[in-house]
C-alpha cells in the first residue's frame, strides 16, 4: 500500500483505477495516472466550480476546453488568448521559471493555429526591501524579458503588486494573445483515427519530470529536495517553433496541434485522444532523447520545453516535416490516433502501458469543503493626516501605484510595429494591420480587496479590467483568468475560491463578458504564509475604428476635466489606508454592477462619438492619483476645484468604484452631460487642463499644488530606487 501514497494518490483514487482497469496498473501506468491526476493537470478541486462561469457569447468561437479561448473579431479573423501561472518554478529559479512560463503559454496559443502577437504579465512579490525578494523580482523580470524579446512577441501590459504574503510565494502569471485567420484555426474535434502524431521541436530530456506534481504541493523543505530538475528556457527554439507551427497551421492536412506542457507526452497524447473518444498508439523508441538511457516513464513524463505535437493526415507527413526542416527543426512520427480509446505506449517493440485515455484525463473530482470566513468590519475612524500633499507624494511613490516603467522598459513592447498605446496606460492597444481595427488588452486584480472580501474583490477585478478597456475606446470581448490560491483542502481557501468564482460569475454576467479560458494555481502557500486570493483577470477588447483610440493623458490646455461616475468619499480599504494608516483588514470599496455598466457604456459612447480627448480609470490611489497620472502622461498641468463636505483624505484617495476621469473641449461638454443623463450616470466638472502644475482645491482651500515635473519624477523613479536600495 505504500506505493499508492508515494504516487500521491488517495486510497479512493486507487480503487477507481482498479475498477476501471479491472487489474493492477503497472509501474509505468500508475506513474502516468498519478501525474495526470495531480491538481495541476486534472483540476480536480476546481472543475465543478469553474462550470459556474459564463462562457457563451455571440462572438465566442471557442470557450474553455481547448488550449486557449477563441473570439470572432470580424474580417475572418479571430483573437486567441489564455493566461497561465508559473509560480512554483519561479519561486525556485526565478529567471528560468518565469522564462519557461512565457514559453508555455505561447505554445497554448500556437496550438490553436494562431500567431502570438502579445504578452501580458501579472506579478506578485513580497516586500522589495528584502534581498531574496529583490532577487526573485529581478530574476523574474529578466526571465520574461529574455524570453519574450527573443521570440519577438511584444510584452505590452501587465501589473505588479507587492505584499509580504507573496514573499515565499511569488506569483508569475503570463497571458498570451494570438491572432489567426478563422479558416486556419485548429480544434481537437478534427482529430481522426489513423492520423499521424508528429513530435516536433526540442529533444526530450529528463528536465521537469514530476513538475506537475511539484506544482500541486505546498512548498516546504521536503519539496525542495523533491524538486524536479529545473527547466532551462530556450527561446530561440521557441521562435523556430512559432514560425514553423504558424506555417504548418495553414495546411488543412494538419488536423490539430497540441502543446506539451505539464506531464509532457502523456498529457498531450491523452488530451488529443480523449477529447474525441479515440486512442493513441505511440512508440517511445521513436522519441529523440537528449540523454542516454532514458526509461519509458521518463520519456512519457518529461516536461522538456519547446516541443509540440501535430496530428497530421496519414500520408501528408512529409509536407509538414519539410516545413519544420526549413526552420532547422526535427519532426518525428511517433505514433498514430487509434479507434480503441486506449493510450498505448510501446518501447523496443513491447507494450509498456495500455490504459483508457479517458482514465488519464478524468480524475475523480474532489469536493471542496468551504467554511465561511467572517468578514471584517467596514468602517474605522481614522485620524486625518496633517499634510495631505505629503500623503499624495507618498502614494505616488508606493510600489503598488508608481510607474512600472523600470520593468516594462526591459520588455520589447514595440516589436511587430502594432503597439499604438504602449504599456503604462490603462490598457495597451495593438492595431491590426490590413484592417481598420485594433485590440486592447489588460490584466487586473487588486489582491488586497480579494483578501478581505473575495466575492467583491473578484467582481472589482472583472469590472476594472473592463473599465481599462473602455477608456481606450474598446468594447470588451471576453476574459481569461488565472486563479491563484493556497491549499484547496483547507476550508478557508475553499471558501475564498468559491466566493471568487461567484464574484467573477456575477460581474462577467452583468457586463456580458464571457470567460473563454483560464488556469488555476493552488498550493501557493508555505507553512508560514499563504497568498491572498489572487484571481487575475485578463481581458481583450475590440476597437472597430483605430482612429478613435483614446488614452489617459491630458492633451490640450483649456480642456475641461470631468468625472464620470459618483464623487465618492468611500472610506473603505484602499492603498491610502494600507500605506498611511497600516490598515488592511477593512472591507473593500462597494461595487454596484448596474452603475458600473452604465458608466462604462456612457464613456464608450462618448469616445465613439469623438467627444473625449482623454479618459482614465480611477483605481488605486483614487482621484488624486488619477489626476496626477493624466498630468504625468500628458506632460501638462491641471487645476481642479472640488466643493464637498466629505472627508478630504477619502475624497482625494478613496477608491470608490465605477469612476472615469475624462477631459474634453468645452464645446463637447453639453453633449457629454446629455449622454450621462441618458444613462443616469453622475457627472461632475472638476476643473481644467492648464499650465505645468497640478493644483487641487477643496472648498476653496489648496490641498495639492505640485509641479508636474516633480510628481512625474516621484512617480517614475520610485520602483528603480526601491530595487537599488
Amino acid at each position, binding site marked *: 500500500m505504500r506505493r499508492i501514497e508515494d504516487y500521491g494518490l488517495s486510497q479512493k483514487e486507487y480503487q477507481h483505477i482498479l475498477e476501471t482497469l479491472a487489474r493492477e496498473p503497472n509501474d509505468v501506468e500508475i506513474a502516468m495516472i498519478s501525474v495526470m491526476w495531480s491538481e495541476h493537470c486534472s483540476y480536480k478541486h476546481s472543475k465543478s466550480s469553474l462550470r459556474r462561469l459564463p462562457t457563451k457569447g455571440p462572438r465566442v468561437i471557442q470557450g474553455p476546453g481547448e488550449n486557449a479561448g477563441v473570439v470572432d473579431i470580424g474580417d475572418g479573423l479571430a483573437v486567441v488568448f489564455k493566461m497561465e501561472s508559473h509560480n512554483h518554478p519561479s519561486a525556485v529559479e526565478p529567471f*528560468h521559471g518565469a522564462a519557461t512560463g512565457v514559453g508555455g503559454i505561447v505554445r497554448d496559443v500556437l496550438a490553436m493555429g494562431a500567431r502570438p502577437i502579445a504578452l501580458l504579465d501579472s506579478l506578485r512579490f513580497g516586500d522589495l526591501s528584502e534581498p531574496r525578494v529583490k532577487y526573485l523580482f529581478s530574476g523574474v523580470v529578466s526571465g520574461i524579458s529574455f524570453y519574450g524579446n527573443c521570440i519577438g512577441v511584444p510584452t505590452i501590459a501587465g501589473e505588479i503588486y507587492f505584499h509580504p504574503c507573496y514573499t515565499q510565494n511569488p506569483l508569475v502569471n503570463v497571458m498570451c494573445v494570438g491572432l489567426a485567420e478563422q479558416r486556419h484555426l485548429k480544434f481537437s474535434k478534427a482529430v481522426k483515427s489513423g492520423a499521424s502524431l508528429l513530435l516536433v521541436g526540442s529533444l526530450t530530456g529528463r*528536465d521537469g519530470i514530476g513538475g506537475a506534481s511539484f506544482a500541486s504541493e505546498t512548498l516546504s523543505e521536503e519539496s525542495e529536495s523533491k524538486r524536479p530538475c*529545473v*527547466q*532551462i*528556457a*530556450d527561446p*530561440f527554439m521557441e521562435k523556430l517553433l512559432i514560425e514553423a507551427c504558424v506555417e504548418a497551421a495553414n495546411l488543412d492536412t494538419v488536423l490539430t496541434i497540441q502543446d506539451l506542457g505539464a506531464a509532457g507526452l502523456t498529457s498531450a497524447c491523452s488530451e488529443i485522444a480523449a477529447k474525441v473518444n479515440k486512442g493513441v498508439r505511440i512508440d517511445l523508441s521513436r522519441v529523440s532523447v*537528449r540523454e542516454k538511457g532514458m526509461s519509458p516513464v521518463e520519456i512519457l513524463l518529461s516536461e522538456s520545453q519547446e516541443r509540440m505535437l501535430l496530428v497530421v493526415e496519414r500520408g501528408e507527413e512529409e509536407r509538414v516535416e519539410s516545413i519544420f526542416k526549413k526552420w532547422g527543426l526535427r519532426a518525428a512520427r511517433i505514433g498514430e490516433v487509434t479507434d480503441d480509446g486506449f493510450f498505448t505506449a510501446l518501447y523496443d517493440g513491447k507494450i509498456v502501458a495500455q490504459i483508457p485515455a479517458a482514465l488519464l484525463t478524468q480524475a475523480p473530482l474532489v469536493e471542496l469543503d468551504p467554511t465561511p470566513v467572517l468578514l471584517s468590519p467596514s468602517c474605522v475612524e481614522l485620524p486625518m493626516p496633517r499634510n495631505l500633499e505629503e500623503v499624495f507624494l507618498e502614494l505616488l511613490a508606493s510600489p503598488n501605484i508608481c510607474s512600472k516603467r523600470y520593468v516594462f522598459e526591459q520588455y520589447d513592447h514595440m516589436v511587430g510595429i502594432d503597439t499604438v498605446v504602449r504599456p503604462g496606460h490603462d490598457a495597451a492597444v495593438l492595431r491590426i494591420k490590413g484592417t481598420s481595427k485594433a485590440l486592447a488588452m489588460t490584466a487586473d486584480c487588486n489582491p488586497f480587496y480579494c483578501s478581505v472580501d473575495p466575492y467583491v474583490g473578484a467582481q472589482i477585478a472583472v469590472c476594472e479590467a473592463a473599465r481599462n478597456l473602455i477608456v481606450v475606446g474598446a468594447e470588451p470581448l471576453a476574459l481569461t483568468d488565472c486563479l491563484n490560491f493556497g491549499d484547496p483542502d483547507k476550508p478557508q481557501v475553499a471558501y475564498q475560491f468559491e466566493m471568487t468564482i461567484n464574484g467573477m460569475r456575477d460581474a462577467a454576467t452583468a457586463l456580458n463578458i464571457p470567460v473563454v479560458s483560464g488556469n488555476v494555481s493552488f498550493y501557493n502557500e508555505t507553512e508560514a504564509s499563504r497568498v491572498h486570493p489572487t484571481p487575475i483577470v485578463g481581458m481583450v477588447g475590440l476597437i472597430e475604428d483605430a482612429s478613435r483610440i483614446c488614452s489617459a493623458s491630458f492633451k490640450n490646455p483649456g480642456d475641461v476635466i470631468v468625472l464620470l461616475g459618483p464623487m465618492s468619499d468611500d472610506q473603505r480599504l484602499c492603498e491610502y489606508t494600507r500605506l498611511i494608516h497600516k490598515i488592511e483588514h477593512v472591507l473593500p470599496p462597494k461595487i454596484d454592477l448596474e452603475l458600473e455598466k452604465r458608466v462604462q457604456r456612457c464613456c464608450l459612447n462618448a469616445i465613439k462619438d469623438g467627444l473625449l480627448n482623454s479618459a482614465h480609470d480611477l483605481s488605486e490611489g483614487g482621484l488624486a492619483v488619477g489626476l496626477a497620472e493624466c498630468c504625468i502622461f500628458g506632460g501638462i498641468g491641471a487645476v481642479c476645484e472640488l466643493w464637498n463636505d466629505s472627508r478630504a483624505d477619502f475624497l482625494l484617495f478613496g477608491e470608490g468604484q465605477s469612476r472615469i476621469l475624462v477631459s474634453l473641449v468645452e464645446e463637447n461638454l453639453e453633449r457629454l452631460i446629455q449622454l450621462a443623463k441618458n444613462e443616469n450616470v453622475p457627472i461632475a466638472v472638476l476643473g481644467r487642463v492648464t499650465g505645468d502644475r497640478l493644483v487641487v482645491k477643496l472648498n476653496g482651500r489648496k490641498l495639492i499644488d505640485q509641479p508636474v515635473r516633480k510628481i512625474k519624477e516621484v512617480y517614475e523613479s520610485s520602483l528603480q530606487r526601491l530595487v537599488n536600495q
Partner: protein
Amino acid sequence: MRKMYRVRVQILPKEGVFDPQGQTVKGALEKLGFEKVKEVRLGKLIEIVLDAEDESQVKERTKAMCEKLLANPIIETYQLLDVEEVS
C-alpha cells in the same frame, strides 16, 4: 603581511541541466566544419583579484563567494581553477 592573489573560477551548467547555449554553439561549430565536436558546454569564467594572507585563505574566500553569489546552485556547479600570487 597581506598579499595579492588572482584566482579563477569556472561556472558551468550542472550535469543533467539542459544547456541550450552550448547546444547552439555546438551546432554552429559543426556547420563550420568542426564535425568532430561531441559536446559543448557554455559557462562563465570569473577572474578575481583579492587581498589575502595566504593561498588557503584565498580558496576559502572564493568558495564562500561562489556559494553566496557567483554560482546558482540550482543549475550550476563551480570550480576553482587556479590561484596565483600577483604583485
